């Protein structure tokens, strides 16, 4: 039933609220945002929320089936893996590794990328090009290969893979931030501010930064999905998270031997990974569409 509107006020809100309203009108984005929120909460609070200890092995309950199948138990809703550890708890803890650490990597890359991108964007000519392409060296090596190299140098472990992923995602931020800033510098309001006497730093802080925030969030969503897949891939290869860490990629690799016996041990982490990446991409998509709609109205 349509809401009764006595006085039609459409444009009476700030640009952020307009963006939010456009975003909320797309159903896929709303669900994706809910999923991302749940993942973030899991990533933060997993140790408190897991029903069982994710690392506790139980020799009597190896490969118990999920609760909806015949041999399953309600106590272990998603079954157990080949060492008797509760799958649900491990998946929840996995969120904090795959998702949480991906967020860390992206934030680190964002800060560095913002620094280099800002210097490159606010300057002109040679200096701008140098800072822009300084970190392009990282583009010459595929991210997985770079992770392997770093692991070969520093040794395996999930923390070392964070460095690799940060490096892989950094050029994306530098270029993105620089392009956004250059686009802003061409606008009339920047000229107006310069005419008013703003220095470069004042210009950056008051005008440019608020206007590129939305572009930066878009870049973050793109980088986040890449980072999550990279962490999972490295865990799968055994280069990242080492056993018994409950990281989704590592869980898939461990359970691969018993694929025919207990397919759920492989399928469930995979499904969750798929859902996480899809949600992040949908949020990014929704944001882009909302920005476009706001610009057009």
């Amino acid at each position, binding site marked *: 039933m349509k809401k009764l509107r006595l006085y039609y006020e459409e*444009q*009476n809100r*700030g*640009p*952020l609220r*307009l963006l939010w309203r456009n975003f909320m009108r797309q159903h896929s984005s709303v669900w994706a945002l809910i999923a991302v929120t749940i993942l973030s909460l899991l990533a933060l609070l997993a140790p408190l929320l897991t029903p069982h200890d994710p690392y506790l092995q139980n020799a009597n309950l190896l490969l118990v089936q999920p609760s909806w199948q015949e041999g399953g138990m309600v106590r272990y809703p998603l079954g157990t893996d080949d060492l008797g550890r509760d799958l649900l708890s491990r998946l929840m803890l996995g969120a904090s590794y795959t998702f949480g650490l991906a967020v860390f990597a992206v934030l680190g890359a964002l800060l560095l990328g913002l620094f280099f991108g800002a210097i490159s964007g606010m300057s002109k000519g040679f200096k701008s090009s140098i800072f822009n392409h300084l970190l392009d060296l990282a583009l010459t090596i595929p991210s997985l290969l770079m992770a392997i190299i770093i692991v070969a140098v520093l040794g395996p472990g999930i923390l070392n893979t964070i460095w690799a992923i940060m490096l892989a995602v950094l050029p994306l931020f530098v270029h993105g931030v620089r392009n956004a800033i250059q686009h802003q510098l061409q*606008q*009339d*309001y920047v*000229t*107006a*501010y*310069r*005419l*008013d*006497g*703003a220095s470069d730093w*004042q210009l950056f802080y*008051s*005008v440019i930064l*608020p*206007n590129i925030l939305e572009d930066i969030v878009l870049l973050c969503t793109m980088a986040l999905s890449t980072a999550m897949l990279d962490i999972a891939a490295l865990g799968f290869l055994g280069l990242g998270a080492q056993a018994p860490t409950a990281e989704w990629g590592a869980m898939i690799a461990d359970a691969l031997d018993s694929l025919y016996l207990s397919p759920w041990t492989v399928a469930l982490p995979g499904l969750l990974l798929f859902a996480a990446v899809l949600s992040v991409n949908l949020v990014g998509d929704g944001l882009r569409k909302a920005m476009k709609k706001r610009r057009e109205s």
Partner: protein
Amino acid sequence: MSNLLQVHHISKTFYKQQGLFKKRAILALQDLSFSLAAGQTLAIVGETGSGKSTLAKILVGMEQADGGHIWLANVKLDQENRAQYRQHIRYIFQEAARSMPPNQRVSDMLHNVLRYATVLDHEQRQEKILTTLKLLGLLPDHANYYPHMFSGGQLQRVALARALILDPKVLILDEALTAIDPSLRAQIVNVLLDLQQKTQLSYILITNQLRLVRHIADHTLVLHQGVCVDYAPTPELFSAPSHDYTKRLINSLVL
């Protein structure tokens, strides 16, 4: 009546890359001189490529002239040091909507303008903002609006408020009245005429709309490919144009 603004022999050349090693010189402005008194309007007319926008940018400080001087109130302006005359010569953009940052409230924007150019404290700035808005027929509530909440006419007034808040002596309107509807244009022209009468503000109007020029400009300068071909008080220019190009322009008015 002494002249407020005097421009002597301004010239500007742009260099465009031609091929790998050669650079082609484009003469944007050649030996241009004119003057403007307080409370008067000068219209600069010319087709695209005649150098009108370059002239506007030089006057306001966005570009630097290669030769010649500008005198404001008998003080020679040093082109390197824009801060000197930033307050006195202000600029109105062609499209008001594009000249304001979309996610800043009007009050924040005006506070910033005052903060960069003056040493007033917060209360004094607030008072100045409200006075200026009132001068242009806007309400104090409008200070809390974002730019997209205004209608076209109100937005132009906000742009005028931003220009006038520093109490300038000269206002440059670069094709600011071109892209708007006739009824809106009439409103803005009325506001400008009113301001000129009250505060003796001088305008430099860069436009191609000769009917408007005939109505509100005291003097007219015709530019053709960077050279001033005609410079005279408006009624004289329209009744007896001296240069061929001006004659053609005026004839296009009649037809």
